[in-house]
C-alpha cells in the first residue's frame, strides 16, 4: 500500500511541474500532504455528478423549460422573480451578448418598432443579431481565451517572436461561429483537421494545437503537455492533474491517462513549412514581398555558408531547420543566425502581402508512450497504450489508427462522454446570462461541487446535443426564456438574500469587458472599421487602430497596459473565465489616454455647443435623449468647461517685432504647431513649435509660453541648439510678459548654448516666455530648445514631456464623459 502511494505521489508531483500548468485545482490535497484540508468526498469519484450522463428533467411544459426549472428552485428558496425589462434594455442587452456592439441605427429602427412583444420579440431579434457577422467577432474571443490565443510565441522567446500566421486560426474561429459550425465538429477540426480530410480552409483550425506558448530547444514535452491541457481543460473541463489528485485506488483518471494522451499529441508536430491557404493575386506589392522574402532568406544561407563552408543551401529556401548545422555554430554565430532568420519571420508577420498560411500539425513517427517513474526521470517505466481517459473508456478500448488523434477528437464529443456538452452549455450560459451555472468553467472535476442548477445544466447540455450542437440554437433558447428577459434591478431584499444571483430571479448587470467597451465606443464615435479578419493590428499606439479589439495583436507575456488593466487574459494558458477588476488604472486610462480623446473628438465633429448638439450626443451614445434636468445641467457645465486653447500650462505662439502681444499659432497637427496646413504658411511662414524646438520667422520670434500655477522661485535649464552648420544662427531669450528680459543667448549655426537661469521668481498666473528670433536671416533657423523648470522640490515643468496639442473642447469632453460613464459601461 505504502509503496503504491509513494510512487503515485511522486509521479503526480513530477508531472505537475512537468505539465507547467497554473494549478489552482486540487493542489491543497494533490499530494495528500499533512495539513492540507481533506477533500470533500462524495462517495467514490466515479459517482461524481459531472461523470454521470445528463438526465432529462421532467417538465410540466407550461413554461419555457428554463423558466420552469428556475421557478422550481426559486420556489424552494422562497424567491420571487422580478418582471420583464423594457424593450430598450433588452435590446442593448441582446446586442451586447450577441455582437459585443450596440444596435445600429437601422437595427434600432426595425426592432424598436417591431410588432412582436415579450419573449417573441426577443427570439426574433436574437436570430437577427446572430445572423450578423459581428457575432463571430464577439464569440470568437470567448473561445480564443480558452485557446490561449496569441500572435507571439511567448515571453521566453525574444527572437523569432512572431507567430506570423496565428491570425488565420483566429479568423477560422470567427468564421466557425458565424456559420454556426456544430460544436462537435468545431472541436474535431481543432484537434484533428489534418486527419479528417477536411477542406484546406479548415486546416487553420489546428491553430488550437499550435498557437500556444513555444518552448525552446529540448522542451517539446512541455508543448505537448500544453496541448493536453488545452484539450482536456478547454473541451472537457477536466485537468488530468486534478483528476489524479485522489488518494484512492479507484481514481477515475490514473497517471497512465496522461501518457496515453501524451503519445497521441507527441506523434504530431508543426512543420516548418506551413501550407498556403490561398495564393495572393499577383500585384507589384506581392512581387516585392516575394523578392524581399527571398533576399532575406538568402542572407541566412549565405551567413551559414560563411560560417560552415560545407553547408549546402537547401532546395527549400525557407527551411532553416538546420537539422545538423546549429551545433557547429558558436554562440555568437548562433545569435547572428537567429537574428537573420527572425528577419524573415518578421517580414512575414508585417507584410500585408505575405500569403495566409495555416498553422497545422502533421503526423510524424507514432509515439509509443511510457510512464516515467520517480527517481528515474529520464528512464521509462511502464508502457501505456494510446487511448482515451480510463473513466470513459470501454474495456480494452485503445486507439487503433496511427497516433489515435482522430479517434481522440471523436471521443471528446461522443455520447459516452458526459462532460463536453455540459462544459460548453455552461460557458454559453455564462456568456449569455453573465454568470455560469458551474463556477469553475474549466474544472468539472471531483472537487467541483454539484451546482445548484444541475437540472438546468443538464437540460441545456441535452438541448445542445439534440439541436445538432448548434451554439446559435442554444443562445436563442436561453434568450427566449422569460428568465433572460427580466430586469436587472431588484428589491434590496432579493439582492441581500441572493447576492450572487444563484436563483436567477433577476438578470445580471454586466460590465462590458475591454472588447465590448472599446468596440462600442468606436461604433458610437463613427470610427469603427467593420472589415472582417486579417493580420493583427497594434491597439495601444498612435495612430490608434479603429478595428475591433479581437484583431489587436496579442503579445504573449507582454500585454499592453490597457489590456492588462482591463483583465484581458495573458494567454499563457487556457482561461475559461476572466476576472473582473475595478481599479484606478482603468480610470486613468479612460481619463487621460489619447486614444479615448480621438474617439471623443470624432463623435462631436461638426457640432457646436447647443442644446441640440447635447441631445445628439446623448442619443448617439446612450440611444436616449437627455432628460430636462440632464440637459440643463449639461449646458451649465459646458459653459464653464470652455478650455484653455492647449491642454496644459504651455502655449505655442509668436511675437512680432516691437510688440509684446503674444499671438498663438493657429494649427496643430501631427505633433507640431504651425501657421497653417501648408509650409511655409502665406502669413506666418515657417513659424513652428514641436516637442523639441521650433523655427522662427524673419520678423517674428517663435515663442513658447509657460503659465505658473503657483508662486515660486525657479531654476530654468535647457540647451538652445542650432543643428545645421548653415545660416547665421538664432538668438534665444527668456522674458516676462512685460518685456523684461531675464536671459539672452545668441547661438551660432551648428553651435549650442546652455540656457540656465536661477532664482527666477514667479507669481501664480504669471507667464514666462521662451522667445527665439532669427538674427535677421531666416534660412536654416531650425532650433532645439525644450526648457525644464524646477524648484527646490524638483521638476515643475518640462516643455518636452508636457508638449501637447489642442485641449479637449467642451463637447468632446462631454462625449468623453458619456463614453466612460457607468451607463455606457454597464449592461442592465
Amino acid at each position, binding site marked *: 500500500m505504502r509503496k503504491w502511494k509513494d510512487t503515485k505521489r511522486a509521479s503526480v508531483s513530477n508531472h505537475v511541474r512537468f505539465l507547467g500548468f497554473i494549478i489552482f485545482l486540487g493542489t491543497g490535497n494533490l499530494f495528500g500532504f499533512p495539513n492540507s484540508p481533506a477533500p470533500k468526498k462524495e462517495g467514490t469519484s466515479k459517482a461524481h455528478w459531472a461523470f454521470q450522463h445528463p438526465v432529462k428533467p421532467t417538465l410540466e411544459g407550461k413554461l419555457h423549460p428554463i423558466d420552469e426549472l428556475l421557478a422550481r428552485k426559486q420556489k424552494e428558496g422562497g424567491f420571487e422573480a422580478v418582471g420583464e425589462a423594457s424593450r430598450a434594455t433588452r435590446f442593448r442587452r441582446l446586442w451586447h451578448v450577441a455582437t459585443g456592439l450596440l444596435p445600429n441605427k437601422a437595427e434600432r429602427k426595425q426592432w424598436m418598432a417591431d410588432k412582436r412583444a415579450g419573449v417573441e420579440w426577443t427570439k426574433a431579434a436574437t436570430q437577427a443579431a446572430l445572423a450578423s457577422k459581428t457575432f463571430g467577432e464577439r464569440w470568437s474571443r470567448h473561445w480564443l481565451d480558452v485557446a490561449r490565443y496569441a500572435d507571439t510565441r511567448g515571453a521566453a522567446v525574444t527572437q523569432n517572436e512572431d507567430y506570423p500566421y496565428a491570425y488565420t486560426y483566429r479568423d477560422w474561429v470567427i468564421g466557425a461561429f458565424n456559420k454556426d459550425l456544430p460544436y462537435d465538429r468545431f472541436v474535431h477540426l481543432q484537434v484533428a483537421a489534418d486527419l479528417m480530410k477536411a477542406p484546406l480552409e479548415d486546416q487553420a483550425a489546428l491553430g488550437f494545437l499550435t498557437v500556444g506558448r513555444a518552448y525552446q530547444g529540448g522542451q517539446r514535452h512541455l508543448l505537448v503537455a500544453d496541448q493536453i491541457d488545452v484539450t482536456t481543460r478547454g473541451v472537457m473541463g477536466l485537468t488530468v492533474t486534478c483528476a489524479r489528485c485522489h488518494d484512492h485506488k479507484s481514481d477515475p483518471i490514473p497517471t497512465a491517462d496522461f501518457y496515453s494522451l501524451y503519445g497521441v499529441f507527441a506523434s504530431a508536430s508543426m512543420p516548418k513549412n506551413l501550407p498556403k491557404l490561398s495564393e495572393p493575386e499577383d500585384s507589384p506589392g506581392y512581387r516585392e514581398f516575394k523578392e524581399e522574402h527571398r533576399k532575406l532568406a538568402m542572407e541566412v544561407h549565405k551567413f551559414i555558408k560563411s560560417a560552415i563552408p560545407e553547408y549546402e543551401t537547401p532546395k527549400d529556401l525557407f527551411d532553416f531547420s538546420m537539422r545538423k548545422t546549429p551545433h557547429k555554430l558558436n554562440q555568437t554565430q548562433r545569435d547572428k543566425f537567429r537574428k537573420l532568420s527572425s528577419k524573415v519571420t518578421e517580414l512575414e508577420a508585417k507584410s500585408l502581402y505575405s500569403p495566409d498560411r495555416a498553422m497545422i500539425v502533421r503526423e510524424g513517427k507514432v509515439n509509443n508512450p511510457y510512464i516515467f517513474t520517480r527517481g528515474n526521470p529520464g528512464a521509462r517505466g511502464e508502457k501505456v497504450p494510446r487511448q482515451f481517459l480510463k473513466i470513459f473508456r470501454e474495456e480494452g478500448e485503445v486507439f487503433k489508427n496511427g497516433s489515435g488523434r482522430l479517434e481522440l477528437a471523436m471521443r471528446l464529443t461522443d455520447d459516452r462522454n458526459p462532460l463536453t456538452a455540459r462544459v460548453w452549455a455552461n460557458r454559453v450560459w455564462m456568456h449569455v446570462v453573465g454568470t455560469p451555472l458551474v463556477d469553475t468553467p474549466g474544472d468539472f472535476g471531483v472537487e467541483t461541487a454539484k451546482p445548484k442548477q444541475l437540472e438546468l445544466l443538464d437540460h441545456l447540455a441535452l438541448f445542445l446535443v439534440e439541436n445538432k450542437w448548434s451554439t446559435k440554437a442554444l443562445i436563442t433558447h436561453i434568450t427566449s426564456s422569460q428568465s433572460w428577459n427580466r430586469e436587472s434591478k431588484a428589491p434590496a431584499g432579493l439582492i441581500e438574500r441572493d447576492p450572487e444571483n444563484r436563483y436567477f430571479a433577476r438578470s445580471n448587470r454586466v460590465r462590458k469587458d475591454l472588447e465590448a467597451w472599446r468596440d462600442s465606443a468606436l461604433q458610437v464615435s463613427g470610427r469603427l472599421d467593420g472589415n472582417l479578419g486579417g493580420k493583427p493590428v497594434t491597439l495601444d499606439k498612435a495612430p490608434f487602430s479603429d478595428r475591433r479589439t479581437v484583431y489587436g495583436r496579442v503579445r504573449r507575456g507582454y500585454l499592453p497596459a490597457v489590456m492588462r488593466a482591463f483583465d484581458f487574459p*495573458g494567454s499563457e494558458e487556457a482561461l475559461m473565465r476572466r476576472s473582473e477588476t475595478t481599479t484606478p488604472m482603468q480610470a486613468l486610462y479612460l481619463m487621460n489616454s489619447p486614444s479615448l480623446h480621438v474617439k471623443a473628438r470624432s463623435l462631436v465633429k461638426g457640432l457646436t455647443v447647443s442644446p441640440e448638439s447635447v441631445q445628439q450626443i446623448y442619443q448617439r451614445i446612450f440611444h436616449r435623449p437627455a432628460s430636462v434636468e440632464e440637459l440643463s445641467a449639461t449646458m451649465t457645465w459646458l459653459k464653464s468647461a470652455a478650455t484653455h486653447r492647449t491642454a496644459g500650462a504651455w502655449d505655442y505662439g509668436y511675437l512680432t517685432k516691437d510688440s509684446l502681444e503674444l499671438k498663438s499659432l493657429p494649427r496643430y497637427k501631427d505633433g507640431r504647431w504651425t501657421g497653417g496646413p501648408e509650409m511655409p504658411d502665406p502669413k506666418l511662414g515657417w513659424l513652428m513649435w514641436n516637442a523639441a524646438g521650433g523655427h522662427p520667422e524673419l520678423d517674428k520670434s517663435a515663442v513658447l509660453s509657460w503659465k505658473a500655477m503657483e508662486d515660486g522661485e525657479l531654476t530654468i535649464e535647457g540647451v538652445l541648439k542650432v543643428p545645421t552648420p548653415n545660416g547665421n544662427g538664432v538668438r534665444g531669450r527668456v522674458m516676462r510678459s512685460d518685456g523684461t528680459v531675464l536671459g539672452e543667448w545668441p547661438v551660432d549655426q551648428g553651435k549650442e548654448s546652455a540656457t540656465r537661469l536661477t532664482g527666477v521668481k514667479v507669481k501664480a498666473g504669471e507667464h514666462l516666455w521662451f522667445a527665439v528670433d532669427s538674427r535677421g536671416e531666416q534660412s536654416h533657423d531650425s532650433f532645439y530648445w525644450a526648457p525644464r523648470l524646477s524648484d527646490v522640490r524638483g521638476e515643475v515643468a518640462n516643455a518636452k514631456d508636457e508638449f501637447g496639442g489642442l485641449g479637449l473642447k467642451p463637447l468632446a469632453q462631454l462625449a468623453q*464623459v458619456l463614453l466612460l460613464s457607468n451607463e455606457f459601461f454597464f449592461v442592465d
Partner: protein
Amino acid sequence: MKHHEQGHGGYIGTRREFLSRYGMGMGALAMGGLPSAVASGATSPLSPKMPQKRGKAKAVIHLFMNGGPSQVDTFDPKPELTKYDGKKIPLELKTERPTGMAMKSPFSFKKYGESGLEVSEIFSKVGEACADELCVIRSMRAEVPNHEPSLLLMNCGDSRLPRPSVGSWVTYGLGTENQNLPGFVSMCPGGYPISRTQNWQSGFLPAAYQGNYVDSKNKDPKKLIEHIVPKHLERSKQREQLDFLRQLNEKHAEERGRDQELEARLESFELAYRMQLEATDAFDVSKEPKYIREMYGDTLQGRQMLITRRLVERGVRFVQVWHGAGQPWDNHDDLEVNHRKLAGQCDQAIAALITDLKMRGMLDETLVLWGGEFGRTPVVEMPKKGTNAGKINGRDHNHYGFTTWMAGGGVKGGHVHGSTDDFGFAAATDKVHVHDLHATMLHLLGFDHEALTYRYSGRDFRLTDVHGEVIEDLLA
C-alpha cells in the same frame, strides 16, 4: 467585534459621504432632480479606521523574494549539512522534483550585532545594518511545493480558492491614511510575478481593496503609472469634468438601487484623479537628498525600496515589493551564482530601507516582512529534462521548512524563532504555518484574526479561515 457587515446596505452611507469630501465643484453639481450630496456620519471604504485594539504596526511592507529563496543559504545556517555535503542525509522527504545528496551552502555565515544573529555573506549588509532588528522565523511551513498554490497561500491564505489577499484584508480593516494614493500598492519591476494579479486580488472584498500594480522598472515617475499625466485638459477643468461624470453616475446608481460594482467604479475615478498629483510626487525619488539615494543605491531594487519608504511615509497602508517578474529566486540550477546575484541586487536596498525607517522613527509602526512563497531543499536537485539545466548545483522547492523574517512593527529584534532539522529541510521546533504568520501579522496591526471577518454569501469569512495561531514568542 465584527467588522461592518457588507451587504449592499453597508455601502450606501459610505458612498454618500464620499461625495461630500469632494467639495470642489459642488456648486456646479446642483442638478435638479438628482440626489444631492448628503454628508452623513459614514466613511469612505478607504478612509482610516480604528482596529479592534491598538496595534503596534500601522503599515506593512512585504518584501517578496518570489521563486523561493533558500533558507540554508540565507538565514538558517546548517553546519551539519556541510558535514554531509555530497552524502545521503538520514532524512527522506518527498520533493517536487528528483533530488539527491546533501549540498552544503556555498556561502559563509557570520554573527552580527549584539544579538549575534547569523546571516549569510550574501546578505551581509542586512546583517551589518539591522541584525538586531530582525525577528527570524526559521520554522515556517507551507502546504505544497508548487509556486502557484504557495504564492496564493502566502498572499491570500488559501492555496486554491480565490480569496482576498492579506493587503486587501488589512486595507479593509484599517482603511488608508492618504486618500490621494491607493491604500495597497504592489510593485514588481518588469512585469508580473507568476499567478499575476491573483497575488493582490480583493476576492469577495470590494474591489476598492485590491492591490494597485506598479511596474517599478520605469525610472520616470510619470511613467511609473501609465496615463498619469492629463495632456488634454487643465487640472481644474478636469476636476469639473469628473464632477459632471460623478453626477451622471450618481443618478445612474440611484436608479439602480446602489449596485456595489457601480459604486466601486464611481470611486475609482476619484482615486485616479487624486493619484495624478500625489502619485507622481510619491514615486519621484529624485526629490530625495543625494545621501539618501546613495544609501539605497542607484539600482532597480534601491529605487523601488526608496519609493516604498516614500509611499509608507505618505500613509499607504500596505506595500508589496516583488523582486522581479516571473520567479527570479527559483534557482533549480546554479544556486551559488544566482543567489549571490539576487541577494546582491537587494541586500543594500533592504538594509537601507530598514535603517531609513528606523532613522525616521517609522520602524516601530511599520511591519517589514521578508521571504518567499517557500524555501529550497538542502539536497541537490537532480537533472530532469525540461525542468532544469541538469547542472546538479541547484535546489528544489521546499514547503516543509523555510525562513522568513520580520522587522519593526512590534516584533522582537535580533530574535530567532523555531528551527528546522539538522539539515534545514523541515520545520522541527516551534513550527509556524503560513496561517500563523498571518494571524500574528493581524495581531500586530491590532486585529484578532478570528474576528476580522467579512460576511459573504451567508458566511463570515476571515483571512485565516479556520486556522492560525498568534505566535506570542515573536512579539516584543
